[in-house]
Structures are given as C-alpha cells and as structure tokens.
C-alpha cells in the first residue's frame, strides 16, 4: 500500500479544532430550517395529519395533530442541526478520517487479529456460551458463510470474475453428499473431498462458456447457471426427489464413531455423559477447520504464480495476454478452486442439516455470499469475516424487531456502501516485498475512492 497522498501518521484531529471561519449566519440557518419544515408540513398534513378511520359502518376522517407537529418539529430541528454542522463537514480534511485509520491499523495487524480470532473461535465451545445450543448453531452458520465468502473471494475478489451463481456449487456439494450417503452409505469423510472435486468439475463446466465474457455479461450467465442447477434439482425427480428434497441424510461421525447413546459411541468412548451438544460442537470444529483451510489455501495461493495471475487478470486481461499468460487457464482455475470450496461447504451443510431441498439454494443465497465479499472489501480475508458476522449475526440480533429486521439489515448495508464504497477493508497488501524491513515505516494510506 503506497501512495504519495496523506500520511497516516499525521497527527489526529490536527484540523478538527480549528476556529470556524466566518461564523454561522443564524438567520440564514433558521430560514432554511423553516422552509424545510414548511415542506415537511405540506407533505405530512395529508399523510400524518389526517386519518381515515372505520367506525362501525362509517368512514370518518380524524385528525392527528400531535403526529403532524412532531414530524414538522423533527424536520425543523434536524435541518437546523445539519445546517449548523455543515460548515464543519465541508472543510477539506487533511488526511484520512479516524475511522479510516482504525481500519488501516486493523489491516496492518491482520495476522495478530486473525490469530486472536482463531483462538477465540477454538475456545468458544468451552466457555459458558458453549453450553448454549443456539449460540453454537449460529456460530456454525456464521462459519459456513465465512467459508463460502472466502471461496467466492477467489473468483470475485482475486480473479475479478463477478459470479452471481455461486450457490450452484454449494448445491452440488450438498446433493453430492446427500445422494451418495443415502444411496451407498459412504461416510462423510470420504464424500467430503469427492464433493469438492465434483463442484470443481462443475466450476470448469460453468467456466468454459463464459471464458469470453466479462463484467455484466458474465454476471448474467452465472446467474442463469445458478438457476439452471436449482431448476434441475427441482425437476429431476427420479434422482433428486424434486422439491420434496432428501431426508434422512446420515449424520456426521467422529471419524467413524457415531454420536448416539449406547456402547461404542463417542460419549461412551470418551467417558462422557451423552449430550446432543457433542455433535453440534464437533460440527462447529469441522467447519472451523474447513474454513481455516480455505483461508490458508487462499493466502498461500496469492503468493503463487496462479494466484498472482488471478489478480493480474482482474486488473487487466489484455496486459495478461501480452505477457503470455493463458487467460483460459487462469479463469478456469479460479472458477474450479472457488467452486471446490463451495462444494466442501455444501456437503458440510447437508451433513449438518440432515435434510436438504432446492429451497436452500435460491438466488438470495448467492446474493448474500456476494454481499459478504463486497461488503468486506474485495479480496480482503478479514473483511469477509467481519461482513459475514454482520450478515449472519445482525438478523439474529435484531430478531426482536420481527418484520423490521430485514429492513434494518438492508439499511445498514446501504449505509456501509455509501460510507465505504469499496468495502470495509478495501486494502491490499502486496504479496511480495522488495524492502520488507522499512515496509512498516513508509506505509501511506491512499484516500478512499481514488
């Protein structure tokens, strides 16, 4: 991260305390607020002030002056405050905001934060929260989305190929385990790698027709691909059991040892009292390991020729060709490896749920995974975690607001995008440094939106 602009180490708030220039014209501000309040009054008179009420068979027009005046007052005060602080906002800032700096520090300390987060994740089941099934369940869901986000990050964040049909690979992985396990009784641990391979194969199948496409066109075709897979799952009744889904998918085993009551089971072997929580905690650790593998793989891949070619392809495909890089191979490898992790996550999903149906693999899932990648900041591994926490945990936290929770979720998402158009952690560290020693000293922060 380098740039001639704005040094991070510039003193905080060096500009924030400067005396206001020219002062504020109070009359102007009041006038402006009055106009805004007047417009609000005109609008809210029919909308809030009048109310049609059914009384018996009659329709009466009631007035609600308290609401009307409240709305006008809110607009007046709001506009007044806004106008007072507008000058402050308009002054050009001499450097990144405190928030930018905080995010940059987070980015700098990525490794430490990552390790702390990992340790926290490992000890979570052994803390007092670990006894709460709801928390373990939500944490597992969260980790599934983190893993999907990291998988899609390969395709979207690194290779720059906008994929709106990622859920298709998730579905392929899920059905792969569900079908093989119910028909042939193979263990999860055998099918897990198979489903990854199978999903990767589907990634290549998707990759071939879209090789020449970029941007919007690519997005449309991948969207179609996601729908094709879902429609096949619904209609190919003989194999997939159609919309009824597949029930009775064998549960996960502790590498062959079952989680049940009785002799030779997990609880028996480890001398524990049987608890339904054991299998949940085990599932939690499985997805944690899978997610960490996804992360380490991607981190390592970025430092290898293939990963660097992905990023180069995102930056400029024509330049890649001129350097003798085969764009076909680069794109297909990104699609295949991204899909592979989707497949792993899918087979985990089906072993956890025990039941899958095409319902679980609708476009909204693709959209959520993509939102995680974009909100987090394209290509940022830690950003994906933060965004996944936001996307999965927020709706849970706001459960008490019932039907408003999706509204709040959507609103928060819009706010983030307005505030940080390139995602929360839109920083990129070079994969190799020529001067690793003084890298820390010369960090300069590029201004957002440049």
């Amino acid at each position, binding site marked *: *991260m*380098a*740039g*001639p602009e704005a040094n991070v180490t510039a003193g905080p708030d060096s500009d924030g305390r400067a005396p206001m220039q020219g002062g504020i014209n109070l009359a102007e501000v009041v006038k402006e607020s009055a106009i805004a309040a007047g417009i609000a009054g005109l609008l809210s008179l029919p909308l809030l002030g009048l109310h049609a009420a059914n009384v018996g068979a009659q329709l009466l027009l009631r007035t609600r002056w308290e609401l009307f005046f409240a709305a006008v007052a809110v607009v007046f005060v709001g506009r007044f405050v806004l106008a007072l602080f507008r000058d402050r906002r308009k002054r050009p800032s001499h450097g990144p905001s405190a928030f930018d700096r905080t995010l940059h520090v987070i980015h700098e300390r990525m490794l430490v934060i990552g390790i702390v987060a990992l340790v926290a994740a490992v000890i979570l089941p052994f803390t007092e929260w670990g006894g709460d099934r709801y928390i373990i369940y939500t944490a597992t869901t969260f980790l599934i989305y983190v893993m999907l986000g990291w998988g899609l990050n390969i395709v979207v964040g690194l290779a720059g190929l906008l994929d709106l049909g990622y859920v298709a690979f998730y579905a392929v992985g899920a059905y792969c385990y569900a079908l093989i396990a119910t028909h042939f009784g193979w263990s999860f641990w055998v099918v897990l790698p198979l489903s990854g391979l199978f999903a990767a194969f589907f990634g290549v199948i998707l990759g071939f027709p879209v090789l020449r496409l970029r941007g919007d066109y690519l997005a449309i075709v991948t969207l179609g691909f996601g729908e094709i897979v879902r429609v096949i799952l619904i209609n190919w009744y003989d194999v997939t059991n159609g919309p009824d889904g597949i029930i009775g998918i064998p549960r996960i085993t502790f590498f062959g040892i079952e989680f049940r009551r009785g002799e030779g089971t997990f609880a028996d072997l480890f001398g524990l009292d049987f608890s339904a929580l054991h299998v949940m905690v085990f599932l939690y650790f499985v997805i944690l390991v899978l997610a960490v593998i996804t992360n380490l*793989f991607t981190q*390592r*891949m970025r*430092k*290898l*020729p*293939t*990963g*660097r*070619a992905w*990023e*180069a392809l995102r*930056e*400029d495909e*024509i*330049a*890649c*060709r*001129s*350097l*003798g*890089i*085969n*764009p076909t191979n680069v794109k297909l490898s990104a699609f295949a490896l991204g899909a592979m992790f989707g497949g792993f996550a899918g087979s985990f999903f089906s072993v956890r749920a025990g039941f899958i149906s095409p319902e679980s693999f609708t476009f909204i899932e693709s959209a959520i995974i993509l939102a995680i990648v974009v909100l987090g900041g394209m290509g940022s591994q830690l950003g994906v975690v933060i965004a996944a926490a936001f996307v999965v945990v927020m709706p849970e936290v706001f459960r008490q607001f019932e039907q408003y929770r999706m509204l709040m979720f959507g609103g928060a998402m819009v706010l983030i995008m307005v505030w940080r158009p390139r995602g929360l952690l839109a920083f*990129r560290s*070079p*994969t*190799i*440094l*020529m*001067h690793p020693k003084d*890298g820390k000293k*010369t960090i300069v922060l*590029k201004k957002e939106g440049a």
Partner: protein
Amino acid sequence: MMLMRDLSRPLETDIPADALLEVQHLTMRFGGLVAIDDLSFTARKNEITAIIGPNGAGKTTVFNCLTGFYKPTVGRLTLNHPDKGPFLLERMEGFRIAQKADVARTFQNIRLFSRMSVLENLIVAQHNRLMKASAFSLAGLLFMKRYAKAEKEAVELAKYWLDKVGLYERADWDAGNLPYGDQRRLEICRAMCIQPALLCLDEPAAGLNPRESLELNDLLMSIRDDEGIGVLLIEHDMSVVMQISDHIVVLDYGRKIADGDPLAVRTDPAVIKAYLGEDEDEAIPEDIVQDLGLSTRTGGTKQGDGGNA
C-alpha cells in the same frame, strides 16, 4: 496416422539470417476498411526499427497483428528467434506469441496492473517461467524449495530492471500511484521481464518531458546494445525516432511510403508530403519552415498532425 506438426513452426524459412522479424504482404481489413495494405518490411537483430506515420496510418494495427490481438487478413509474419528458430506469428494464438515466441509489447495507453505493486507487476510478467518451476503452483503450495528458488531468481531479474530505470526504491508502491513517466518505464521493464527476443513499444515517449525522453533514448539503446534485443518502435516524438532508430518504416493510410535509415527517410519527398500535405514543388512558407524546424536537425519529418487531415 500422421503426427500433427505444429503449424506455427516452419521447417525452413527463406528469410535472411540477420532478420529478426520478416513481415511479408501484411494486409488487415476491417469490413470494407483497409487498415494495412500489403505491408512488407524487415526488422533486424540488434537494431531499433521505428514505424512512423501520421495519425490513423495503421501503426498500432501492425502491432496488434504482430502480437496476436488481430488475425491478419493476408500476410506472413515470421519471427526468426535467435535461440528457438522460426515462428509464424500469424498462425499463433494471441498469448502464445509472448509465451512461446517471446515477443513482448507495451501499449499506447499504459496497461499496468495498477492495484498491484511495482515488483508484483514484474513477477507476473515471469508467470510462465514460475509456473514451470512450481509445477503449476503445486510445488509452491507444498512449500517446496524449488519454487522459493525460482521466485528469488524472478525477484533478482525484477531488481535488475528496476535498478536500470531507477525504480528500485519504489518497488513496493502500487503501480497505479507512480508518476506517469515512471509508469511508462515500468511497462517497458515488465515487457523486458518476459525476456523477449523482440520488444514492441507503442509510443513509449508519449507524455514524457524532454528530459524523460532523453532517458528513454538511453534505455532503449541499452536494451539494443547491452541486451542484444531487437526493438520495434512506434513513435511520434521525432527526437526519439531520429536519434536512436537504425531503420525507419513510414506508413500512410496503411501503405508503406518509405523505408530506410533516418537520413534517407527524413529527406524522402513522399514522407514530407504525407506529414505536411504539401505538393513537393510548392514552396513552404518561411514561417512554417521555421516553426517546424525543417532546415534543422529534425528535417522534413517533424511530426505535425495538421497537415495530413
């Protein structure tokens, strides 16, 4: 069954031994528009060959044909690789021209990987070598020594070129944050990092100030003399073209109108006509002669785009 022979590798060629690139009867049509019309020329080893011509003469189209971005309508483009033997470029798929025949190019509008660091840009350029060394990244994934060694060599090569153009200190900057002149130089470095046999530069001096132009001259001459690489150059800046070119090909409306050393081209009546749009026997007004410096070093080929409209 007969084994398939690589059709881009001719068994024998009739081109002279000192030729690096032989362009024969190259024609490129876009529908009814003839962008290049029966162009033939030779670029020799260890020489800088410049292609000049007024705007829209088809210079960049020649480059795009050479580097596989266009398939020529007619023509044969033979690259006589000093180590690997002859290649027929018109039969090769775009990226393979850089991969197998070692033809590198830069672009008129700079095409760096702007959000990657300067060093990464140069490492990406060595993609094919690193892929081979790392067994398609597998060796790297398993932390094998051979990849670490190959990467180290790649960094050394990058360092060599960064030192050469004075960008070593800025190796960890984002390429997009470099000043314009540095970006131009970096693009040349990146092309050199594929270790080409032929380097094609599309207007490398565009947007450079006079001092930077001079530095560019030194760099290009060093590439020719120290590295022994043939350079093919499109340029409008006559101070670059006339000083460093060994051989100049002049295009106008897709046709070759002159071909020779700088002195011959500079005094060629057809070239003067193409650039200035004057009849040869018509006297050029005194003030224009002065403005264009026709009597001075740059002669009649000083670039002026007003004349050829």
